[in-house]
């Protein structure tokens, strides 16, 4: 798999990370390096091997259905650049 400049630009846009036009070739190149490194894994024959999802045999931890959290709107909003009347205020999103 090879990432071209156009794909790199699209990935950046979907992630809402601004990348200058001049930096795109470098970004595409970095993606390809990473993917190329990972593709080495395809050399291993894993026919019939169960996927390993954890290095220790663990069961997904569950919680009981009880309200134990919340009621701290001020703390939730404290890092927001703009908040009004208890809401996050963001530039208008028009549908």
């Amino acid at each position, binding site marked *: 798999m090879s990432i071209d400049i156009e794909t790199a630009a*699209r990935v950046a*846009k*979907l*992630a*809402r990370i601004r990348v200058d036009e001049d930096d795109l070739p470098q970004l595409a190149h970095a993606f390809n390096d990473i993917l190329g490194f990972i593709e080495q894994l395809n050399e291993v024959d894993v026919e019939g091997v169960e996927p390993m*999802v*954890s290095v220790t045999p*663990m*069961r*997904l*931890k*569950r*919680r*009981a*259905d*009880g*309200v*134990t*959290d*919340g*009621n*701290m*709107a001020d703390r*939730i*909003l404290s890092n927001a650049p*703009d908040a*009004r*009347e*208890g*809401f*996050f*205020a*963001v*530039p*208008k*999103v*028009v*549908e």
Partner: protein
Amino acid sequence: MLDLSYEPPKPKVIAGAKHDWELVIGMEVHAQVASQAKLFSGASTRFGAEPNSNVSFVDAAMPGMLPVINEFCIEQAVRTGLGLKAQINLVSAFDRKNYFYPDLPQGYQISQLYHPLVGEGEILVDMEPGIARLVRIERIHVEQDAGKSIHDMDPAMSFVDLNRTGVALMEIVSRPDIRGPEEAAAYVTKLRQILRYLCTCDGNMQNGNLRADVNVSVCRPGQYEKYQETQDFSHLGTRCEIKNMNSMRFIQAAIDYEARRQIALLEGGGSVVQETRLYDPDKGETRSMRSKEEAHDYRYFPCPDLLPLEIEQGWVDDIAASLPELPDEKKARFVTEFGLSEYDANVLTAETVNAAYFESVVREAGDGKLAANWVINELFGRLKKEDHGIDESPVTPAQLAGIIRLIKSDAISGKIAKDLFEIVYTEGGDPEVIVEERGMKQVTDTGAIETAVDEIIAANPAQVEKAKQNPKLAGWFVGQVMKATGGKANPKAVNQIVSAKLGL
């Protein structure tokens, strides 16, 4: 279980300018799990709380916060799956669906694309007595809801409330087995009924606890049958998805509009573009959500924060053993056990509270048919007049059973029974005592009835002559006698005596 037999309904046909068209509809219903806390956090799910008060650091996607799954939510999804006779997958897994939107602080929704918790099931969608469509369920997966954006509070800003962020949803995906707008609404109605029987979702559409995305395409007659034979989608038209509807009326109107839009496009030589559309109830039309097009690249991948969800067969069996009697079974039982019409059984099983009320009445009064009549026509009719639900009924099942027993024992006539019902409804009291105290008992004493008949005959000689020539006029005398006795005379006895006295 006793099954009622049924035939599938005819698909809806829309006549275009050139030829006939049929509709093919698949639905994705998002049902909010009736849990106290969210799917991956301990924040409350309560509706209508102050903005951003039901939010934990997990929901707000603060760095380093990790999701821990709410076991109750999983149980409810399994329960729903079992209620839809579906395959339960003992191993499922969570994936990240990535997209950017202000009310999604994580930048992804945790969902189940590759390994859903629940597999194939089915829903029998009743249209009318003896007519029903079996709709196949493809899957149910568990996922997080997003927050809520409010666009009309400020001209330049959108306001975001994260209270709903992270609430557990069950996405129930159907196969494209639905063939018209009415069927689509009936499908949602039936699904909602089953969810409410199971108590896994409260089905409150107004609050957005049950919302539907509808996939609509059109095809020429005959094409759908080819699809069903082969399961090959190429026989069908290109579909459009109408997002996020929370009213049965809008669902029907949106499908109808969308089908006609597609037909006009195709007959004009154009083609349908697969896209996401939004229904505008004010204008009664659907329009393209262009903003969604690029965002459709969701870049799904397994969620690294969560191990696969493994559940045990024994746990599933325990849930299965705790399932209540479901609508289809209850309806079939009402038809066979109480001799009800399918229509009446439908009405009485629509909500479990209605069914429970009816069964309490029958238990005390016997006579299912009479009880059904009184519950549906008198009680429901009266409650509806005041916009009351059955849980607000001033008449208890025991009181209604008392009235029915009085009718059955011929102590009161049907007409008096209605007056008695009104008294019990407005004033309360024991029906038997009321009948005694207010002298409402039916007069079966033939002597008393004879006296009344004699008096009326004596007072109306001209009518007597007419009736002798036209026996149908005897009814007039019966009416007069009933009036004279305040409706308390036994109508059958009055009929006989009037006929005998007039020599008919």
